[in-house]
């Protein structure tokens, strides 16, 4: 029997690795992948606590989160492709038109 806290710790580790990926990397695609990893870590937390409290609410929420993530990836990748084609760079620091 695996304690629920082990799943929560693993989820925290994956979430922090995703945050570090967003902060450190400059390639816009890898930043996007790190965001998806963060969403997955949160889903793991929800499912682990759903088993802990014997309630299906956590799993339904994970289903909705997956739907939102899928829609977000579709629209976000369309935006990324348009920006990269326009500026001919995948470096996130070159997208600085709004910079003061």
């Amino acid at each position, binding site marked *: 029997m695996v304690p629920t806290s*082990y799943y929560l*710790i693993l989820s925290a580790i994956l979430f922090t690795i995703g945050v570090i990926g967003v902060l*450190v990397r400059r390639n816009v695609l*890898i930043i996007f992948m790190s965001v998806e990893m963060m969403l997955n870590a949160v889903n793991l937390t929800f499912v682990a606590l759903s088993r802990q409290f014997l309630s299906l609410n956590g799993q339904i929420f994970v*289903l909705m989160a997956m739907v939102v993530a899928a829609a977000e990836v579709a629209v976000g990748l369309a935006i990324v*492709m348009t920006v990269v084609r326009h500026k001919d760079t995948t470096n996130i620091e070159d997208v600085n038109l709004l910079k003061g």
Partner: protein
Amino acid sequence: MFLFVIFALIAIVAALGVILSRKPVYSALFLLVNFGTLAAMYIMLQAQFLAMVQVIVYAGAIVVLFLFVVMLIGGGQFGPGDTVTRGQGGTANSLAPSPVAASKRRRVLVTRTTAIVLALLLLAGVGYGLISGQLYPVQGSEATFGAGSVEAIASVLYTDYLLPFELASVLLLVGMIGAVVLASNE
């Protein structure tokens, strides 16, 4: 327990591979492995329907979408700390004027320090979580908690959560229209 340790180690190694790879294609493949191990963990957590949805939606659609985009726009080829664009060579940063390069280095230092501080905070939290009490699920409940199967999720999804279900379908429709509009070049 042994299965959990195996899958957890693979998931962490794959996550580190995502953020440390030189090429975005390798990152996408490491992400695929990460999603696969998470699906296995959902099965261990008695969430079989979610495990299959994870494989179909995340591993089967989102990672494939990432690979499409990486192949279409060619990705970059640099590792962490890269500061050159994809159209230039490796000497662009060394030829930059000095004040610009200095401010860029300071920015890189600030974000790296933030990342390291967050990682240390996580390690402190994880250590505390490991040495303090643990949260065990209710004993003898694994057999009765057959929930997570398709019937159980359906019995809840179409009665209590009908409105979020319909709103999710509307959200997918809006996302689809938005993606088509954004990606069309007029």
